[in-house]
């Protein structure tokens, strides 16, 4: 295994779904069920059985809209406010209307959700305004349940193929160029529609531990969707709205206020005091978190040691079985126990991820990108705060629309020169006798991301980043060296990470105001609604460099009252008169 082989083959399909994590399987299932005659191919860089952000499962649905607990209008309002107003509400509203049906469908797959004594969904309040969090006590079964459905529906699965570039022609999508991660053989997939479900750009910043793969996101998610969409000429939205999350320090997994919060746990400073009103992840909350870390009251901790034994045992049972189960090993090594002491937290490296923020490939309410026949869903598509249930629901919308789109089209013709050029680009590091290995190119890029792009954002630092990225890119293109197919995969990831780093710098420089709390805190600029109450769309310019433009926020479906707009700006706990 890993020996570099020379080979290229071609297959045809109606709908190509790239990425078999969360959104991808649902897109493939929905497309196939709507049109059983359609040839649907699901491609993954890893193995669909255990790929993506939820490889080991998930501890809950963070954004359910269940009748009796929340309404689509209320949820749309909440997410609009949490995003400082910069959203197109149509995709959020459609998600909010459609997600209950998806929950029932997941339930029918055998994925169980927490119910109360009356058999009703046991929804918890974590957000600032509404009640949307539904725990999944057996959330470790998600991937297995999905895989059973894929086999039953006879979806064609291709594991260990990494898509490297999309093919376009006749002004629309034509397919994708892929490389086998264990043999370096090429696969050209001609497709009438392509659904991208490639996850977050999670290997962008470098974790403070220095371990390159100790990221918050599954490190397989290197932002290939962002990079491929960019090179195919699609629009990407609000990339300056980074993802930054509050995590268990060093372990870099979620502290899980969403699990522990409803049971009485909370984020505290070194004095054991609450300093934020609401543990729901938002840029404004992260700014307070950052301020507390920088103040004399840091570090910041997850506080559970005031809770009863049975409550802590239940929290432990959930947190140490699903999503990131090695968390139990981590605490055991450290000798830390939720019962005895508070657990130190820190903030994550930066990334792009609409699952938790709003930085993604621009899509409408049908998950259509700006390239005809090309769809995006899940963490990489800019439906804000869409989490796992958003990936499932928007993946479903993408699959359903894609299978309608293919009815009236044939394969688009593409330039075969594009395939040859891509082969040359991909294989260049295999043609040298020595040089710089991909892990050094990647480390340097990510170290520069930390040094110069992490908020608070400073213009001169971001411009320095651009100059240094150009130097590393030059090394990557002219001196990178790989010895086997596995390293070739890493070299392609390094290239994707570089693309994302350059987009992050460019998008952040373009928006000359501060917005979304810490996510886009530009210290030289105040928030400026007059000039910047808009989306920013980035695409590949004629000169091959990122180019940004403003786009109006579409008229709201659900109006926001003036006195509601700043609900998320009031995160800091105010001392009461009695306390003073």
């Amino acid at each position, binding site marked *: 295994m890993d020996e570099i082989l020379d080979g290229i083959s071609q297959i045809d399909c109606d709908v190509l779904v790239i990425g078999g994590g969360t959104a991808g399987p649902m897109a493939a299932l929905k497309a196939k069920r709507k049109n059983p005659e359609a040839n649907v191919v699901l491609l993954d860089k890893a193995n669909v059985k255990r790929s993506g952000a939820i490889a080991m499962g998930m501890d809950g649905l963070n954004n359910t809209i269940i009748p009796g607990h929340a309404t689509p209008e209320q949820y749309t309002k909440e997410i609009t406010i949490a995003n400082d107003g910069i959203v197109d509400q149509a995709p959020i509203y459609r998600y909010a209307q459609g997600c209950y049906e998806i929950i029932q469908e997941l339930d029918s797959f055998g994925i169980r959700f927490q119910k109360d004594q009356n058999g009703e969904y046991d929804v918890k309040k974590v957000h600032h305004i509404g009640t949307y969090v539904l725990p999944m006590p057996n959330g470790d079964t998600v991937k297995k349940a999905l895989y059973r459905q894929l086999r039953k529906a006879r979806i064609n699965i291709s594991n260990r193929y990494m898509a490297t570039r999309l093919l376009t022609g006749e002004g629309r999508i034509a397919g994708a160029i892929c490389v086998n991660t264990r043999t370096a053989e090429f696969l050209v997939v001609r497709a009438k529609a392509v659904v991208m479900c490639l996850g977050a750009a999670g290997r962008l910043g470098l974790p403070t*531990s220095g371990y390159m793969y100790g990221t918050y996101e*599954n*490190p*397989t998610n290197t932002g290939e969707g962002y990079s491929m969409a960019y090179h195919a000429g699609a629009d990407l939205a609000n990339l300056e709205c980074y993802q930054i999350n509050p995590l268990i320090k060093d372990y870099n997994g979620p502290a899980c206020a969403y699990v522990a919060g409803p049971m009485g746990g909370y984020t505290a400073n070194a004095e054991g005091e609450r300093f934020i009103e609401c543990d729901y992840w938002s840029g404004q909350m992260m700014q307070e978190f950052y301020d507390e870390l920088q103040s004399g009251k840091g570090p910041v901790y997850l506080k559970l040691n005031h809770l009863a034994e049975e409550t802590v045992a239940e929290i432990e049972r959930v947190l140490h079985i699903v999503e990131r189960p090695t968390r139990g090993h981590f605490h055991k090594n450290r000798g830390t126990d939720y019962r005895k002491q508070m657990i130190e937290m820190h903030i994550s490296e930066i990334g792009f991820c609409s699952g938790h923020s709003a930085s993604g490939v621009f899509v409408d309410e049908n998950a259509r990108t700006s390239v005809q026949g090309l769809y995006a869903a899940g963490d990489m598509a800019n439906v804000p705060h869409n989490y796992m249930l958003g990936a499932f629901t928007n993946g479903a919308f993408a699959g359903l629309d894609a299978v309608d789109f293919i009815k009236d089209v044939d394969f688009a013709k593409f330039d075969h020169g594009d395939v040859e050029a891509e082969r040359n680009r991909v294989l260049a590091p295999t043609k040298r006798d020595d040089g710089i290995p991909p892990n050094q190119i990647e480390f340097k890029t990510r170290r520069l991301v930390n040094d110069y792009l992490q908020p608070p954002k400073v213009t001169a630092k971001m411009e320095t980043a651009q100059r240094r990225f150009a130097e590393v890119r030059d090394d990557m293109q002219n001196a990178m060296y790989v010895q086997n197919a596995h390293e070739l995969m890493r070299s392609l990831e390094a290239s994707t990470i570089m693309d994302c780093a350059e987009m992050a710098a460019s998008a952040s420089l373009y928006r000359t105001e501060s917005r979304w709390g810490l996510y886009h805190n530009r210290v030289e600029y105040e928030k400026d609604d007059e000039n910047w109450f808009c989306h920013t769309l980035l695409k590949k310019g004629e000169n091959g460099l990122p180019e940004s433009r403003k786009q109006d926020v579409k008229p709201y479906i659900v109006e926001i009252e003036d006195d509601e707009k700043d609900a998320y700006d009031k995160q800091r706990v105010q001392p009461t008169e009695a306390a003073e």
Partner: protein
Amino acid sequence: MPLAQTQTSVPVVVDDDLCIADKGCTVCVDVCPLDVLRIKDMAEGPKSKTAFMQYDECWYCMPCEADCPTGAVTVNIPYLLK
């Protein structure tokens, strides 16, 4: 630029006595999202093959341990963040 070999301790440990790679099992290699596990030939001992971690690129996510049919795989926390 010439290359050097740098040593690193890896987080995933396989118990060769329990591993059944010699019977054709590749479950841990198949499920790893980062594709860092491989099967190698054994020079000595009763087993002809065993699984091992070839690349130190681990998310300590645990499918290899959870899905191993014989309980041969243990995922430790990588040293740098332990």
